[in-house]
């Protein structure tokens, strides 16, 4: 169920260049059901900035009523969020949207992420591992400075890193790694920039896949019709990234 709560900041740290990891605590954490859902955060109590910021969830700890988010501080809103310290509270709305269906994987899954699309794949990998699914992680970043959670992913399964400038791992995009890997998996899950999602879909037209999309959002709950995408399912209607998604089966979103 969607809740609004002033949650306690437990920890915040910069884990890569401009990439922040923020852990919060509160009853809302216990509503988290699927990896890939997001929360909508009000970064200031003033009217500036006015709108909430959609932030993805990297891991959930139901026992401690906590969850951890990872975001890139690049604008005014996320810049203010990066200033929050343990003991502060933040206004969180969530969990929102539909996440990755973990039950769809059978034996082996590829988890393909780019940049700030990587965080939700971490909770996904944990939940898939818990179900006995082997996970292979293919993660792309701008440069070595921007890489995060590499060791954490390695503990959960085979992990490949690509950087655009070649300063770490394979030089290029995740697709360069995918070209070299076997196709002995049954399901893929992906989150990242839209061109990357397109490339991943093209790479595996025969496989079962689930993709998490991004779009400029207003309300985050499906009421404002800001974050719409065309869909192969209807010529007369849009789908909303915030409430119908952000995760959709491959082939549904026309980007």
């Amino acid at each position, binding site marked *: 169920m*969607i809740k609004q709560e002033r949650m306690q900041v437990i920890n915040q740290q910069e884990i890569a260049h401009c990439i922040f990891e923020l852990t919060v605590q509160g009853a809302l954490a216990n509503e988290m059901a699927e990896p890939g859902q997001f929360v909508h955060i*009000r970064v200031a109590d003033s*009217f500036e900035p*006015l709108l909430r910021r959609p932030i993805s969830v990297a891991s959930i700890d139901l026992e401690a009523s906590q969850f951890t988010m990872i975001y890139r501080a690049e604008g005014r809103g996320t810049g203010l969020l990066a200033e929050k310290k343990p003991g502060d509270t933040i206004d969180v709305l969530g969990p929102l949207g539909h996440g990755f269906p973990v039950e769809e994987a059978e034996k082996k899954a590829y988890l393909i992420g780019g940049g700030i699309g990587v965080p939700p794949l971490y909770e996904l990998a944990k939940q898939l591992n818990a179900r006995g699914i082997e996970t292979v992680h293919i993660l792309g970043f701008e440069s070595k400075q921007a890489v995060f959670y590499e060791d954490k992913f390695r503990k959960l399964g085979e992990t490949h890193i690509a950087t655009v400038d070649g300063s770490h791992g394979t030089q290029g995009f995740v697709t360069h790694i995918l070209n070299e890997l076997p196709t002995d998996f049954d399901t893929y899950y992906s989150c990242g920039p839209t061109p990357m999602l397109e490339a991943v879909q093209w790479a595996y037209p025969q496989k079962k896949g689930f993709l998490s999309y991004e779009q400029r959002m207003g*309300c985050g*709950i499906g009421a*404002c019709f800001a974050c719409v*995408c065309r869909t192969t399912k209807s010529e007369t209607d*849009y789908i909303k990234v915030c409430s119908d998604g952000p995760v959709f089966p491959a082939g549904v979103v026309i980007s």
Partner: protein
Amino acid sequence: MSDLTVKLPGLNLKNPIIPASGCFGFGKEYAQLYDLSQLGAIMIKATTVETRLGNPTPRVAETASGMLNAIGLQNPGLEKVTEQELPWLEKYDVPIIANVAGTTTEDYVEVAKMISQAPNVHALEINISCPNVKQGGITFGTDPDVARELTRAVKEVSAVPVYIKLSPNVTNIVSIAKAVEEGGADGITMINTLLGMRMDTKTGRPIIANITGGLSGPAIKPVALRMVYEVSQHTKLPIIGMGGITNVDDVIDFLSAGASAVAVGTANFVNPFVCPEIIGQLPERLHELGFDSVEQLVGRSHRL
């Protein structure tokens, strides 16, 4: 206990708080969060004869204390709204104000005639002020003669009282208000959004795909208040005021300026519980200010 009820043409409101059209869909999203029967009324998303896809994205952009939107009247069309959305809302004890939009007078008439017959639609809000569509919308709301004739045409077919939603994007809003009064309107809702733009500083391109969008949020409250104040002195029509309302004191201000009830728009996106929160705070705030009822507050600025 303070009396929150408001009586307006077609509308017996439990309280003066109404979510504004375009900010509340057809209620389903907010119904997951609270009981919609608490609300004074609901202004549903603008309905046109045909299904409309609306504008390309990006459709919204944040601005200082506000936001721009250019959704472009995306809606499932008259048939789906009357067959699915309105019947779904019947389970709530709340009057519906149906927002009617179109490209031609005939479009408005067709939607008004049909949608006003739905059992839970107690009033119409005629959208002659949408700034985000190429045809219709605002073109009906910027010329007094056109606005008067459209009001007449809609009044002729509507089974319920008709409120006209005015645009602030005019030189003289009083002349438009007087024209719709002459055309037989039962009330006025105001204001719609103010036309605006935001640039991507790096590329020099407008951020909104439609180039311009409608500005809403706290940034526009002073403009809205001024317009409600002016219009309420020059027409006898009741006004449902809106523009940047985010808290209980904003509501008090609009009532003082001359509105009989208010609509809350953009604030729903910031705090989805804002409407029930304001309703809960209103009795105490009225008491603190020395009033027993909402009706005592209406237009008090004119009597000082």
